[in-house]
C-alpha cells in the first residue's frame, strides 16, 4: 500500500524534510526508545512498517519502490526502534531519520546531501536500551558473524576493538562474545577474503549484534577453512591452512592460482624447485603425502611436469594440510595429509566464473540443482593452448613438440533431507607431452567419490565415503629407423576405498570419532605392447599387483580442564599382498639378485602372499597458557604400504607405484612434535613455534645402475634404508588490515642411512647422508597491501638452502674419452634458492549487483631474474665452454632464469 503523503509530491517533501533533518536539532528520544517485539518471517518491509505504525503510532514516510524488494526475517524482543532500524538498514542502500518525534523518514543513502560513494559508511549501531545510558561501565556483546550473501556463519572471523586491543573470534557456528567498556566504539570485523567492516557502536548494556560480511570483489571463489567435527581436534597442531585469498594474492608463474604452490610458502612445506611435481613435508618424499580430493586420493598432482597443479583452484572449497598430529581417521602416508574439499555449488543462483591466462583458461558453472535450492551442482574445467602457441613458433624444436592438458571436475550435492546429504564428485584430467623426441608421454587421473553424511541426531553424525582413483601412464616409443621396433609402455594404478566414520558429540567439550576403512589396490607395474604388425617386439607384462589395506580407528577429543584439551586415538593398519603372484625366495646369505634365488612360492588368486600389520597411536595435547596462547604436543605413528618407484630427485609422471610385498617392507614413521601457539591482539596476529623429530624405517634407495622399468623383480634393485628428520618451524602472520601477510622460517634436516650387510646394498659406507630433500634453511615472506578499494599489491620472497647433489670429483681417460668419478652420495649442495615475485590486482568493479565482474592481475615471477639452479650437471660442450674444450665443465640449469611477466583476467557472471 502506497503512502499517499509521499506518493504525490515526493521530491518537495523530501527536500523539506531533509532540510529540517540536517539543520534543525531534533528531539526524538521517545520514538527511538520504543520497544519493538515480534517475530517477523518473510514479512515485507512495508507490512512491517504497517505493523509498527499500528502498534506504536509511528508514521513511516517512504517511496514504495525503494522498499518493495526488502523482506524482514527477524525476531525482536524489547529492542529499541533505533536498534531495529539500524539492524534492518545496516549495509543497505537505504537510511532513515526520526522526524518530529512521531515519524520516520526512509530515504536512499546519498539523498540527504552525503555522497553516494559514502553509502557503505556504517551507521551507529545502538546496543542496549538508551534509557540505561551510563548505568553500566562494561557490557557483553554476543552475536554472529554471517556471510552477507547467504547468511552462512563464518568460522574464525575476527572482532577487534582497536582502541583497547580487545578482540575475539567466532566459533564454528559463527558466534562470538566480547566484553567492552560501555560508550561509543568502532569495531573492526574481518574474515579472510571478505571486506573488513568498521562498525560504529553505541554500547549501553549487554546485548546482541550480528555482523554481515561480504566477499571482496574478486573473482576467485573463497576457500574457507572451517573446523570440521570429524577431523581437526581442539589440540590439533602442525596443521596448515591455505585459503583462496592467500592463493590468489600470491604472485605465481603464469598468474595461475595454485593450491600446492601456495602450500609451499608455509613452514615445513618445500619443493625441489620449479617444474617439480608435488611437495615435500618435513623432509619427506613426495610420495609420502596423501592428497585427498573429497576422500579420493590423487596419485599425480601436477600438469605439464609440475608447472601447474592438477586441481582447478575455482573448484576448491576447503584445503587443510596435516603435517603432524594426524587424526586417527587418516593413514596410508607417513608425511602429510592434504585434505581438499571441493565446492558443493551455490545454493542461491546460477553463477559462471573463470579466468583467462597466457597459457591456460578455466571456467566454472555452479548453482542450485532443483528449485528447492538445496541440491546443487558444479562443473568446471581447464585447458591449455600451449600447443597452439608452440605451433606459432618458428622453432622446429617446438613445432615438433606437443604439450597440453585438460581437466574437468564436477560435483552434485543432493540434499536428501534436512539432515541427510549426499555429495558426488568426479574428476578427469589428462596430459600429453612430447618435446621434439620419439617419445610421447600421456598420463592422467580419473577420480570419483561419494560422501553420504547423515546427522542421526544432534550428537551423532554418520559419514560414509566411497572413493575411486585411477592413474594411467603411457609411453609411445617410436624407432625412426625401424617401425617394427615401435612399442607402447603402460603403467598405472587403481584404487578403491570405503571409509565410515561415526562421530558422537555428547557436548561441546567432548567428541569421539570411530570408524573403519577398507582399501583395494591394483598396481599395473608395466606392460609392453607392440605398436605395429609385423613387429620385433615381444609383448611383455610385469605381473599386476593386488593388495588390500584395512584400517580401524577411534579417537577421543575432550577437555581435561578449562585450559587443557586432549585428543587420543589409535588406528590399526593391516595390509595384505594378494595373489595371484609368484614370490621368489632368495638365499639370505647373499644379496638379492637373480643369482641368489633358491626357489619360488606360487599364490593363487586372492591368497595372501604377505601380511603386515601394526598399531598406530595418535596423541595430541593442548595447554592454554595464562599469558595467552597454548603449548601443544603430538605424537603419531603411521605405516605406508605404497611407494613410488623413482630414481630421480624430482618425481616424474613416468614413475610408477609399488606396493609392499614379501621383500619390500612398509615404511614406518614415528613423529613427535611440540609447539607454542599465540594469537596476539585477539587474533590479529598469529604466531607459532614448532619443533619435530621424525624417525623413518624401510625407506627405499636404489642400487647403482638399477633398472626400474619393466623389472619383474624390482626387489633386486632396491636397497633398504632408514632415516630421521628434525626441524624447527617459526610462523608469524598478520591476518587483517591493509597490510597483511606472513613470514615463515624452517630449519630442518633429513638424513638417510643404508646399514646393510652386503656391500652392493650400501651407500656412502653406511654413514648417514642427507636426503635429496634436505634443505636446512627455508624462509618465506608474503606481503599483501590494499592500496585502495580497487588496487592491491602482493609480493613474496623465498630463500632456502640448495638441495644436496652428487658432483663429479675426479676424472680419468678411458679409451680416449674423459670419464668422471662422482663424490659420495649428496656430498655437495646447490647454490641457495631465492626469488621475489610481485603482482598488482585491479578490481574492475566493486558494485556487487553488477552482473559481470572482472579483475586484472599483472604479476612478475622471479622479479630480479635470479637463476636458481634446477639441476647441476657436467658436460663437454665446446660451443659454450670457454676453457679447455676437451675437458668437462660443471653447469647449472635454471628453469626460470628471467623475470616472467604474466597477465590474467578473472571474471564472474
Amino acid at each position, binding site marked *: 500500500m502506497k503512502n499517499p503523503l509521499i506518493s504525490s509530491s515526493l521530491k518537495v517533501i523530501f527536500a523539506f524534510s531533509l532540510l529540517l533533518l540536517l539543520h534543525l536539532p531534533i528531539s526524538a528520544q521517545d520514538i527511538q526508545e520504543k520497544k519493538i517485539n515480534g517475530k517477523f518471517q518473510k514479512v515485507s518491509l512495508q507490512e512491517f512498517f504497517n505493523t509498527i505504525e499500528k502498534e506504536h503510532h509511528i508514521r513511516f514516510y517512504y517511496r514504495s519502490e525503494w522498499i518493495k524488494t526488502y523482506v524482514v526475517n527477524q525476531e525482536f524482543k524489547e529492542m529499541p526502534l533505533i536498534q531495529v532500524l539500524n539492524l534492518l538498514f545496516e549495509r543497505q542502500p537505504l537510511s532513515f531519520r526520526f522526524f518530529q518525534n512521531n515519524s520516520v523518514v526512509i530515504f536512499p543513502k546519498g539523498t540527504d546531501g552525503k555522497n553516494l560513494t559514502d553509502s557503505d559508511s556504517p551507521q551507529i549501531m545502538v546496543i542496549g536500551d538508551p534509557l540505561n545510558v551510563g548505568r553500566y561501565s562494561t557490557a557483553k556483546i554476543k552475536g554472529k558473524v554471517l556471510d552477507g550473501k547467504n547468511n552462512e556463519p563464518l568460522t574464525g572471523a575476527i572482532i577487534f576493538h582497536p582502541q583497547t586491543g580487545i578482540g575475539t573470534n567466532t566459533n564454528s557456528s559463527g558466534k562470538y562474545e566480547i566484553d567492552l567498556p560501555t560508550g561509543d566504539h568502532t569495531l573492526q570485523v574481518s574474515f579472510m577474503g571478505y571486506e573488513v567492516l568498521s562498525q560504529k557502536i553505541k554500547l549501553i548494556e549487554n546485548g546482541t549484534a550480528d555482523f554481515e560480511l561480504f566477499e571482496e570483489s574478486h573473482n576467485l571463489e573463497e576457500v574457507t577453512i572451517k573446523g570440521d567435527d570429524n577431523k581437526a581436534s581442539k589440540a590439533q597442531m602442525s596443521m596448515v591452512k591455505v585459503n583462496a585469498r592467500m592463493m590468489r594474492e600470491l604472485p605465481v608463474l603464469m598468474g595461475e592460482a595454485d593450491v600446492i604452490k601456495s602450500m609451499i610458502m608455509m613452514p615445513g612445506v618445500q619443493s625441489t624447485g620449479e617444474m617439480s611435481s608435488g611437495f615435500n613435508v618435513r623432509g619427506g618424499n613426495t610420495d609420502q603425502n596423501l592428497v585427498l580430493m573429497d576422500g579420493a586420493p590423487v596419485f599425480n598432482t601436477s600438469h605439464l611436469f609440475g608447472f601447474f597443479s592438477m586441481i582447478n583452484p575455482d573448484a576448491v572449497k576447503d584445503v587443510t594440510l596435516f603435517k603432524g598430529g594426524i587424526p586417527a581417521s587418516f593413514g596410508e602416508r607417513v608425511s602429510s595429509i592434504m585434505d581438499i574439499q571441493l565446492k558443493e555449488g551455490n545454493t542461491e543462483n546460477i553463477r559462471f566464473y573463470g579466468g583467462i591466462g597466457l597459457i591456460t583458461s578455466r571456467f566454472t558453472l555452479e548453482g542450485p540443482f532443483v528449485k528447492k535450492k538445496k541440491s546443487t551442482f558444479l562443473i568446471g574445467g581447464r585447458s591449455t593452448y600451449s600447443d597452439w602457441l608452440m605451433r606459432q613458433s618458428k622453432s622446429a624444436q617446438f613445432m615438433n613438440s606437443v604439450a597440453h592438458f585438460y581437466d574437468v571436475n564436477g560435483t552434485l550435492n543432493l540434499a536428501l533431507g534436512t539432515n541427510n546429504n549426499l555429495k558426488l564428485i568426479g574428476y578427469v584430467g589428462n596430459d600429453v607431452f612430447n618435446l621434439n623426441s620419439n617419445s610421447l608421454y600421456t598420463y592422467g587421473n580419473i577420480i570419483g567419490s561419494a560422501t553420504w553424511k547423515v546427522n542421526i541426531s544432534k550428537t551423532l553424525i554418520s559419514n560414509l565415503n566411497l572413493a575411486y582413483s585411477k592413474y594411467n601412464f603411457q609411453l609411445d616409443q617410436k624407432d625412426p629407423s625401424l617401425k617394427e621396433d615401435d612399442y607402447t609402455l603402460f603403467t598405472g594404478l587403481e584404487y578403491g576405498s570405503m571409509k565410515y566414520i561415526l562421530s558422537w558429540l555428547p557436548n561441546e567439550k567432548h567428541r569421539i570419532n570411530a570408524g573403519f576403512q577398507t582399501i583395494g589396490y591394483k598396481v599395473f607395474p608395466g606392460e609392453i605392447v607392440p605398436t605395429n604388425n609385423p613387429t620385433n617386439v615381444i609383448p611383455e607384462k610385469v605381473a599386476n599387483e593386488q593388495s588390500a589395506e584395512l584400517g580401524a580407528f577411534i579417537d577421543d577429543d575432550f577437555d581435561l580442564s578449562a585450559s587443557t584439551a586432549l585428543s587420543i586415538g589409535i588406528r590399526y593398519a593391516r595390509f595384505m599382498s594378494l595373489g595371484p603372484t609368484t614370490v621368489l625366495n632368495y638365499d639370505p646369505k647373499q644379496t638379492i639378485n637373480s643369482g641368489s634365488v633358491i626357489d619360488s612360492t606360487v599364490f593363487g588368486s586372492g591368497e595372501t602372499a604377505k601380511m603386515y600389520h601394526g598399531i598406530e597411536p595418535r596423541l595430541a595435547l593442548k595447554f592454554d597458557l595464562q599469558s595467552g596462547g597454548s603449548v601443544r604436543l603430538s605424537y603419531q605413528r603411521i605405516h605406508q604400504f605404497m611407494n613410488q618407484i623413482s630414481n630421480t630427485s624430482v618425481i616424474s609422471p613416468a614413475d610408477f607405484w609399488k606396493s609392499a610385498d614379501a621383500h619390500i617392507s612398509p615404511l614406518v614413521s614415528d613423529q613427535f612434535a611440540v609447539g607454542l601457539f599465540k594469537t596476539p591482539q585477539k587474533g590479529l596476529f598469529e604466531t607459532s613455534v614448532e619443533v619435530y623429530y621424525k624417525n623413518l624405517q624401510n625407506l627405499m634407495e636404489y642400487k647403482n*645402475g638399477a633398472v626400474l622399468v619393466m623389472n619383474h623383480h624390482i626387489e633386486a634393485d632396491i636397497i633398504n634404508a632408514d632415516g630421521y628428520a628434525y626441524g624447527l618451524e617459526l610462523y608469524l602472520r598478520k591476518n587483517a588490515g591493509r597490510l597483511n601477510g606472513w613470514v615463515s622460517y624452517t630449519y630442518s634436516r633429513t638424513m638417510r642411512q643404508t646399514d646393510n650387510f652386503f656391500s652392493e646394498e650400501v651407500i656412502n659406507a653406511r654413514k648417514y647422508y642427507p636426503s635429496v630433500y634436505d634443505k636446512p634453511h627455508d624462509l618465506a615472506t608474503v606481503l599483501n597491501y590494499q592500496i585502495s578499494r580497487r588496487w592491491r599489491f602482493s609480493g613474496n620472497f623465498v630463500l632456502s638452502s640448495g638441495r644436496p647433489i652428487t658432483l663429479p670429483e*675426479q676424472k680419468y681417460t678411458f679409451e680416449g*674419452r674423459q670419464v668422471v668419478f*662422482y663424490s659420495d652420495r649428496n656430498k655437495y649442495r646447490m647454490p641457495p634458492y631465492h626469488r621475489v615475485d610481485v603482482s598488482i590486482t585491479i578490481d574492475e568493479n566493486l558494485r556487487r549487483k553488477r552482473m559481470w565482474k572482472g579483475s586484472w592481475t599483472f604479476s612478475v615471477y622471479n622479479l630480479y631474474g635470479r*637463476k636458481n639452479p634446477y639441476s647441476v650437471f657436467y658436460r663437454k660442450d665446446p*660451443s659454450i665452454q670457454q676453457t679447455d674444450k676437451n675437458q668437462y665443465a660443471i653447469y647449472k640449469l*635454471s628453469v626460470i632464469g628471467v623475470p616472467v611477466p604474466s597477465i590474467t583476467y578473472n571474471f564472474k557472471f
Partner: protein
Amino acid sequence: MRKGFIYLALFGTLFVSCEEYYKPYLEIVPGTLVVESRLTNDSLQNFVRLSKTRDFYSSNAVEWITGAKVELIQIFGVTTKGIEVKPGYYTFQDKPVVGKSYILWISYNKNIYESEPVVMPPLPKIDSLYTIHRIEKEYRTNGYGTPELFDTPVREINIDATISHKLEYYRFTWRAIIQWEYFPPPPPPPNAGPPGPPTYGWRSIYDNASFNMAGPKDFSTSDKVQKHPVLSLAYNGQSYLDSATQIPANWIVIVDQYGITKNSFDYHEKLNKQFSAEGSLFDPVLTQVYGNIHCKNDPSKIVLGFFDVNSYRQYRYYFNFGTGPDNQVIQRRLNRYFDIPDYGDTIGIHPEFWEDNYY
C-alpha cells in the same frame, strides 16, 4: 601485434630456462688407479694402460703408473707377462683365443689387483653395410644465445649383423678419410705456361662421440642387428676441409667391429650415460661406474676401468656419395689394408692407398 603477443607468451613459458658455467668447490681427494685394458685377436690392440685419476678441475697431464707387474692369465692355460713399452703402457705377445677365459693380474704399490674372468667371444662379422639418405638436425646457439635448428643432408652408413647365442653384442669404431684434390691455376703472364701438377690430399675424421654399440633391442626378439647406424657423413665434403681450393673427391671409411661380452656392453652403456648426462628435465640420480677389477688385499679400495677381451675384424670401404640424394652412391669394399696417416698430401702422384670410382 598478434605475433608479438605470441612470442611474448612463448618467451614466458618456454624460453625462460637457461644454463651457465658453474664452479663449485670440490674436495681434493687422492688419485685412484685406472686400468684401461683391451685384448683382441689383433696384436696391435693388446695392451693394458695404467694411470691415476685427477681432480675434476685439474689441468695437469695424466699421471701414468710405471713399474707395475702386469700378467694375463688364461684360466687352465698359460700366463703371459706384460711388457712396459712406454710409461704406463703394457703389451702382451700372446693373443687371446676364442672361447678361452682370461684374468688380468696387476701388482702395484704393495697392492694386488685382479679382474673377473672374461671369455674371448667369437669373431664378429658384418652381414651387410649400406647407406641411407638422412637429414641431420642439429641445434646450434646463435649470436644471441638462442638455439637454432640446422639441417644437414647426410649419408648414414648402416650395418646388419647376426645375433647368436655366443655373440650378441658388438661395438664399432670408425675412421673416415676424405680424399681431396687441388689443381693449381696456370701461372699468370709473363710466366704463362701449363699449370703445375695437382695435389692429392687426405684428412681423417675420427669417432670421438659415445661408444657405438649394438645388441638385442629392448623387448625385441629379432635375431639380427638391423639398420644399425655406425656413422654419417655430409654430402658436402667441403665442410670437412680447411680450404675452398681443396676439392673433396670421395671417402675411405674404416669400420672396426668388436665382438664384446654382455658385461662389456653394460659397462660401456654406463659410460655412455655419463657422456650424455646433460641437464635433463628430471635430474637423474647419477650412477657410479665400476668395472670388473678389484683389489684383492683391500676390497674397500676402489679400482676404476675395465678389463676387456674382444674379438675384432676390420672393414674398409670406398664411397662416393655424389652431391645429394639424387646421385647414385658408389660403394665398394676394399681389400687393401694400407697404413694411412691421419692427413697429408702428395704432389703429382696419388698416394698408394688412394681410391677412386675406377679402382
